[in-house]
């Protein structure tokens, strides 16, 4: 397959963005900066502010588009500008990035759907293999027959071959778009996949554009071998006002939109400082709204009485603040709690039941593992040998080891050391039975220990202890073992 240079391809598309400079591979080699971010400030955005333009599209549809894309007109306008007229070639690949819930997928998919452009939207998380990705793309663009042409375990060149084949039968009248969500997963697939997709337009010789969506910046994508630089497009976070506008959209039909937006205003006042994630905020809004409306239901307050409503909801929001991001209680349970709570009972969330019941020896094995992970091996003599002879305090407490082992995290230790410590901390004589060993491996499956390096079992396996100090303190309290006395950090 012949690879043409980008120059040829650059000729084919006509940019409607006079102020944006594109760097092709050639120019990149010459002048250094790799790719450019399309900015939304300055001259570009001022032109966009007037609204969305798309040639050959009725104004009414554009208006409905604008309604569906609140607070993202600028970005949508830029995108439309890049896409150009339907029959024109588009820039081969566009990379859109921005934090979670900034409307990346929403904007691009809405645009493509509303304007009825041929496109394939694939989430990379679903594609356990590249084959699935190819199949879904072909399926969406050309129908089921084309996907059947792919051989088993197709490679990128198979995909390109099949694409060319079907493309020859159905030549593109409009630009075809391939949208890949969570594109960061492409990096874990075959090495040639990402560079190949970026140049797909050249490879298949068709009017096709690949749009990659990710939460990660492009710098983390760039392969070592270099590749075609896509057009970078950043979706900034929503501002507070924008959040207010968006959240107000899903108002409850049984109340006026004004009430709901005043509710959202209160909510944002409380949570905006700790949480700007649209999804989380929406979740919180849905959780607490019924509580907010309670005085209205009871007839204690009118909709206009914002102050009273605020007084009523504020303590509940404060309480919800403790569990932001944690999702400790399911939304249904939260609702129930709010229904029947009278006093501030402690939330019986997921973390409330951190206590784990373990068999007696498992507890000691875990304690031994913890000691082995957080004590330097040379101090074992001091802690576990009865008559450890003279070990000078100064030499024992080496001052240069200022850093606490607990800050450094657990260190790996061999099985032998674990067992030696285990036998010296457990108070009775324990036979080295098979079940003691199997307990070690069950601790590993319970993720209380982790095995370091997947070596052969015969070859002295190494472990790390994966529990916290609080957890081990609770465990050792149940077997009345004073673990603090045995920890080097606390001596």
């Amino acid at each position: 397959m012949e690879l043409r240079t980008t120059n040829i391809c650059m000729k084919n598309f006509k940019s409607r963005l006079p102020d944006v400079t594109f760097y092709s591979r050639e120019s990149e080699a010459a002048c250094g900066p790799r790719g450019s971010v399309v900015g939304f400030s300055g001259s570009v955005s001022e032109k966009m502010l007037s609204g969305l333009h798309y040639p050959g599209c009725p104004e009414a549809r554009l208006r409905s588009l604008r309604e569906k894309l609140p607070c993202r007109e600028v970005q949508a306008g830029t995108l439309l500008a890049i896409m150009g007229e339907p029959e024109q070639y588009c820039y081969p690949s566009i990379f859109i990035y921005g934090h979670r819930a900034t409307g990346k997928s929403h904007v691009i998919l809405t645009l493509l759907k509303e304007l009825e452009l041929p496109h394939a939207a694939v989430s990379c998380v679903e594609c356990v293999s590249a084959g699935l990705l190819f199949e879904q793309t072909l399926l969406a663009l050309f129908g089921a027959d084309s996907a059947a042409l792919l051989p088993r375990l197709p490679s990128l060149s198979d995909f390109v071959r099949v694409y060319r084949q079907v493309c020859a039968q159905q030549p593109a009248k409009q630009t075809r778009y391939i949208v890949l969500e969570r594109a960061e997963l492409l990096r874990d697939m075959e090495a040639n996949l990402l560079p190949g997709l970026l140049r797909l337009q050249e490879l298949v010789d068709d009017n096709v554009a690949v749009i990659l969506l990710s939460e990660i910046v492009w710098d983390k994508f760039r392969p070592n071998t270099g590749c075609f630089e896509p057009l970078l497009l950043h979706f900034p976070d929503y501002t507070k006002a924008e959040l207010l506008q968006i959240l107000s959209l899903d108002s409850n039909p049984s109340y006026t939109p004004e009430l709901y937006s005043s509710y959202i205003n209160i909510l944002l006042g409380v949570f905006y400082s700790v949480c700007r994630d649209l999804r989380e905020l929406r979740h919180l809004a849905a959780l607490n709204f019924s509580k907010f409306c309670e005085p209205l239901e009871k007839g204690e307050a009118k909709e206009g009485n914002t102050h009273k409503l605020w007084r009523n909801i504020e303590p509940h929001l404060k309480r919800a603040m403790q569990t932001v991001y944690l999702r400790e209680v399911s939304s249904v349970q939260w609702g129930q709690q709010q229904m029947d709570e009278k006093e501030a009972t402690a939330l019986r969330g997921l973390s409330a039941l951190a206590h784990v019941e373990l068999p007696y020896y498992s507890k000691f094995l875990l304690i031994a593992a913890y000691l082995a992970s957080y004590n330097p091996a040379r101090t074992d003599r001091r802690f576990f040998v009865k008559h450890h002879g003279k070990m000078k305090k100064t030499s024992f407490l080496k001052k240069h080891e200022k850093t606490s082992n607990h800050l450094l995290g657990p260190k790996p230790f061999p099985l032998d050391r674990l067992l030696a410590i285990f036998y010296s901390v457990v108070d009775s004589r324990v036979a080295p039975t098979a079940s003691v060993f199997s307990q070690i491996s069950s601790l590993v499956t319970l993720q209380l220990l982790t095995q370091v390096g997947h070596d052969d079992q015969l070859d002295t396996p190494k472990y790390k202890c994966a529990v916290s100090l609080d957890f081990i303190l609770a465990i050792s309290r149940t077997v009345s073992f004073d673990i603090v006395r045995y920890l080097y950090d606390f001596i």
Partner: protein
Amino acid sequence: MNTSSVSKGCFVFKPSSKKRKRTVGIDEYFVDGNDDCGNGRERFNICQKLWEKIKMDTEILQDELNEKILESLLDFIKKCTLSFQSRTDDWASRMRASEIPTAALVLGVNVPDHDMTFQSLSDLLKNSVTPFSVSVQAKECTALKNLMQRVLERLMGVGVSVEEDEEDSGIHLPQKRVSCSISVLCQWYKTVTKKHAMKSPDKTCSENGFLQSPPIVVIFKDFEAFNPRVLQDFILICNRYIHELPLIFVFGIATSPSTVQHILPHSVSSLLCIELFQSLSCTQHLATVIDKLILTSQFPFKLTGKVLQVLVSIFLYHDFSVRNFVKGLQLALLEHFHSQPLSVLCCKKQEARHNAQKLSHKDVEMVRQLPSFMRYVETQEPQEQVQLLTSDDHVKEVCQMLLKGLRKYHKNYYPILRCLHSLTASLPKYPLGKQIRELHISCLEKNVWETNEYESAMQLLRLLAKDELVAALRKCADILKPGKTKKMKSALQQLEDYIIRFEQLDGMSIETLSGEEITSPGKDLQKKTDLFQLQKTLLEMKGSRRTKKMSPFEILRNETLDFIDGLVRSHLTPPELQPLNEVCYYSSSGVLRRHLNATPRTSIQTALSHPFYFLQNENLKTDAGTVSSAAPDICIVYKLHLECGRLINLYDWLEAYATVVSAAEGKDPDAEDYGKVDELKHARFIQSVSELEFLGFVKSTKQKTDHVARLTWGGC
């Protein structure tokens, strides 16, 4: 086998057809080749019957224990299903429409027991909620691909086999592997539900009681063991399809619910709507099992204290697994019926009488040799003794009588044990143990009333206030009520009398108390300055207090407690004192421990350092710590390697080995080639070193090329 041939050689013997038949059937194992008692088959049958009963009882028990949690889980799933359908009209449920309902089922660390719970859960689901439930295990889902494949296979595979009988045009699994994605599942689900709807168009429920669009329940059996990446991706994918597929997850969590947060990042866990379900703790579970299986006179088979101790300690110290406990019980049962010929008498009343009649002469001899029976004989009149030692028939008669006595003993033992436990379980510091099994074990081992703990428990009981005591006695009376034996009935009668007397006490107690004079010994004390004098007075005062006139309540309390003490003394005697207890009690705790809690490392070390222990060859018998030079090569090599440090020089090792082996060959120590390494010795040495390597004692090391590293610690 003998042959008439004079010469040595190989002879073929065709096995006789009769012998070949012998190999079938498990019961044959009970009939030893050189059968000394003919009742093997009967013992096997009794054992089988008993085990079936025990198994059934435990299963019923398990179901009862799980009932509550499973029911709430089912309710949750049903509720979620309904909310899937009402999604569009309700604002609140529309707001959380993108969340996948998830049940976090916290089951405790006894992972082997979970299988049964999940089995009954999926049975329940299949019966009442949805035909679409899949359970997946971590070990079959190492990658996302595998997980998807399992889920699709199990969901669609079942559906296909059902549908294909009716019509050919039904859905069939895609031939190509490539398309194992949830979108395929979506299409499949749509077709299946459409078909359901077509079958019963007029009703919301189809004929088998399922809702119109039954949910798809995915059960993750061992949540912790899953690869976090796989789970995260799977949840993300499912979330994309939640509007088309009513998915519900069940996480089987072994440790604590917070592992959900450890394994799933916020971006993923925010897609779930998690509800928590906590199962019964396994210690409670064990207590119930012991209560129903061990502390009952229902089963004739019993465990001695030591055996029970072994089983309980394996449970508490090692695995927390009730299933393993029951397995241990099964092993004890088998061992008992296998090793004790007289266990033929260990069965129900009628059967036991029948079997006692049929005892052979050999069996009767065995009965005579039982220690408990010998003790019984010694207590009899001389004439009776002669009878017992000579007449088989008389022994059989006596056996029946003694077995009856044993049954009676059990019928009285368990109610009284429960009474004593209910009285002492609320005492501070639990002198007789918190759990009834502890009390049971100490009663099995010795006369419980002779222990200090019993003494202190009784003293504490004598300090109880009236309402507490009466409440405790009421509880005892409740326990005794179902008792059928005469002794239990009379004990119940007396106990109720005491309770009535306590109640009658109320009216008169105040008057009697006020009439009593309280002497104040304080003033006498002040005069005394001498220490000796002081001690004497104090002792006197103590004595006088004891003789001090007691209130009627105190008198009655003492009387009641003496009555209870009497009950304990007469009914809670250790079973060892009962004649013929060997028939019912399994006592070899060592065997059980060896089987259930094996020590492979110790066994290997014993085999290597004391080859005589397993080989039983007289030549290998040596003093402790030494190995005969005639021992197998690996033993010699092992012994030599023990004397080395962490790194072993192979050549030195070989030299030492050659010397030892030469001595074994009986060569002259002064000869020229003594201790020389020839090819044979070299090969033998290399072989045994590689055997040691295989067993995990040494491994090759990169530090020094001609050295191996020791993997066991200790050494010189």
